[in-house]
């Protein structure tokens, strides 16, 4: 029954994605690895082995080992045989962050990436608007391109004067 088999695999995949929704980025615990676009693919082989493909945000991202371990633990707890693969191509981009992920990020106090890397403003090098996640003011200034983790820059709000993290576009 090829049709029936296909159905089963499809459900299986969705179940696995749902389980992996609970694997968070250890440095931004409100975001799942799917929200961030770190989770690239899930494959189920005929013998039932599950291959999960993940990609690092930055080459030196120190969270990758933890993420890999948590993916394995999460699925092994369900009795699954799991293989986690990491690949760098295509290179991760902030464009892969889900809309839900962007909202959760702002609620958590980190300004989400201001525009798509394919935006005209980005290509023309026009200054982007980074909104303060606290008071929502658009009057903000860059303090440093390098923040508390590789993926963040440090900004200051010129209205409420608080500093905040900005998830920079790559």
């Amino acid at each position, binding site marked *: 029954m090829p049709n029936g088999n296909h159905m089963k695999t499809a459900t299986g995949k969705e179940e696995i994605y749902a389980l992996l929704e609970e694997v968070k980025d250890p440095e931004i615990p409100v975001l799942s690895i799917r929200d961030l676009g770190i989770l690239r693919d899930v494959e189920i082989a005929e013998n039932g082995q599950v291959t999960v493909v993940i990609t690092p945000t930055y080459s030196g991202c120190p969270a990758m080992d933890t993420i890999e371990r948590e993916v394995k633990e999460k699925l092994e707890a369900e009795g699954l045989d799991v293989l986690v693969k990491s690949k760098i*191509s295509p290179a991760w981009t902030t464009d892969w962050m889900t809309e839900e992920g962007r909202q959760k990020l702002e609620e958590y106090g980190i300004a989400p990436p201001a525009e798509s890397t394919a935006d005209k403003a980005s290509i023309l090098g026009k200054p982007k608007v980074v909104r303060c996640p606290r008071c929502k003011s658009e009057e903000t200034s860059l303090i440093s391109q390098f923040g*508390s983790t590789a993926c963040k820059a440090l900004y200051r709000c010129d209205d409420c004067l608080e500093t905040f993290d900005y998830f*920079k576009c790559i």
Partner: protein
Amino acid sequence: MTKEEALYEYLIRLGDNALILGQRLGEWCGAAHQLESDIAMTNVALDLVGQARMLLTEAGEVEGKGRSEDDLAFHRNEFEFRNNLLVEMANGDFGQTITRQFFFDCFYFHFLQALKSSKSEFLQAFAMKSIKEVTYHRELSTDFMIRLGDGTEESHEKMQYAVNLLWEYTGELFEKTEADEILIAEGIVPDLTQIKSLWEQDVMAVLEKATLLIPDNKGYMASGSRKGHHSEYLGYILAEMQYLPRMMPDAKW
């Protein structure tokens, strides 16, 4: 020299540059003049060490003797390292670190741009990934070159001293070996002579904005790393970096 031997040598060269410069920048952890610079230096270091891991892992696979990234990073001696002399130079003051970084970032940026069209699947993927990171590194070092060069009398003097000190280590970035010739012919790596002219345009434009001059040293350029001849600095870097894995070879995180 076979194509595999050439590729191994090239991967080691790239991997060692990223590893040694990353190690040098890591020395700023907790020691920079302000927290933002401290974090920036170590962020750049983290990107570079991440890149070194990919490059050395690939080098081990190309070599085919079962050596891992750790074997290559921690169990080779000075004369087996192929990083450029520039990246092993001492951090000195912040101006020297920034000048070293600026010279390297300009080279690395244009090199990776060209490497994006490599016929090697690995090198192409590596370039696409790393260029995103190096674009930020280059912005940082360029900004500081201009800010400090065209800054106060004292900062200008320190930056000019740094340029004079490090200039003679830049020529070696573009030296080619037999490995280059083999890999260029295969479309695997770019020709460093072409990267050199892009680098010169970039560097001259920024130095002018920074009101800095290149020293007149009659065209003298230091050389040696392509053959494994290094400055006295490398041994000390390796002593610190390799101490633990050599002392306790089975140590795991």
